């Protein structure tokens, strides 16, 4: 039984080989290639998000060098030097140079934002001097922008404890 099986196997191999040689082509190729993917800190990822440092770094509770960027303008942030718990009602609050967005990938991308929160329309992210919004800004590979935040509660009727923003999704899409 064992011997017969072996002979049949040989025959099949021989005819297969002959057919392949007849066409002059390669009979088969098998190649194993590695794939490795790591999760980087936000500061080192393809879309870099990192606290800008400086005077307003108290609002940045995690600057992206050890995990993900987190910004906290509420009573849960005990790092504020003056102990404030949030923005004023009926006021325009501007926080300059809060964090940096950089394209560390390989091609130009457009940055768009999806904000979520009970009053997320009151918060706007600007590049540099509040003349251009981050939402819709194009970044070539290697380009970065320092982002400032404006929160406008004027005429909104919001009072202490009301939520403005809960999270922001940064989209970077190939242009």
């Amino acid at each position, binding site marked *: 039984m064992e011997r017969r099986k072996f002979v049949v196997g040989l025959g099949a191999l021989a005819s297969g080989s002959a*057919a*392949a040689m007849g*066409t*002059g*082509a*390669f*009979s*088969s*190729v*098998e*190649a*194993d*290639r*590695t*794939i*490795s*993917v*790591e*999760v*980087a*800190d*936000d500061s*080192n*990822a*393809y*879309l*870099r*998000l990192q606290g800008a440092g400086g005077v307003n770094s108290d609002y940045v509770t995690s600057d992206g060098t*050890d*995990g*993900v960027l*987190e910004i906290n303008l509420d009573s849960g942030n005990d790092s504020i030097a003056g102990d404030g718990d949030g923005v004023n009602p009926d006021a325009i609050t501007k926080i300059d140079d809060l964090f940096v967005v*950089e*394209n*560390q*990938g*390989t*091609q130009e991308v457009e940055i768009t934002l999806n904000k979520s929160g009970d009053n997320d329309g009151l918060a706007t992210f600007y590049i540099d001097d509040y003349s251009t919004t981050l939402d819709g800004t194009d970044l070539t*590979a*290697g380009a970065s922008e320092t982002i400032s935040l404006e929160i406008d509660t004027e005429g909104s009727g919001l009072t202490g404890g009301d939520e403005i923003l809960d999270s922001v999704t940064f989209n970077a899409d*190939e242009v």
Partner: protein
Amino acid sequence: MDRRKFVAGLGALAGGSALATGTGAFSSVEAGRNLSVSVADDSNAYLGIEALDDEYIDATDGTLDIALTEANATDEGGEGINANAVTGISDLFKITNQGSQNVDVFAQPLTFIQADIDSGVESIAVFLTPQDPDYNFLFDVIPIEPTTIPGSIAYKNVDPGNELRFGLTAFAAPDTATGTVEINNSISITAEPNAEENP
């Protein structure tokens, strides 16, 4: 018994020899022929495996390795995917039939998943995404309710010169996924002659 067998063997050998010399044929020939085989880089081999975006590919040893890692950082300093994010890369690499005949190409697996066993929370999933949807290919799917995950892919009848492009989608979650999970695996790419086109 042993002796008889030996004699019979000799007789057969002699007969064969007489027949050969009777035809006036050569008794032996030794001819040297050049048979040259060289190893090509993946990009130039018969089964071409070539980067489309070489910053995410490490091809320093001549083979294509997909590497979204600190060791293979982009020119701009990107060392990996963001946590709590979905990263998509199109036109990552391509497989080209650089041989002489029509082949079937198989690539597997296309899905890579890892979870942090200790926490059971942090996880990463990477999907190699075929970019030639109009091509005549077949998915072998792993059924996982309520959706399906492509486990391998077979492209039928890839003519010489034709190429198959792949991208990548990666997903890591939650925020704490940084440094806790990573994919370190391999993909097998096989090309065989199409049985119908090459009987």
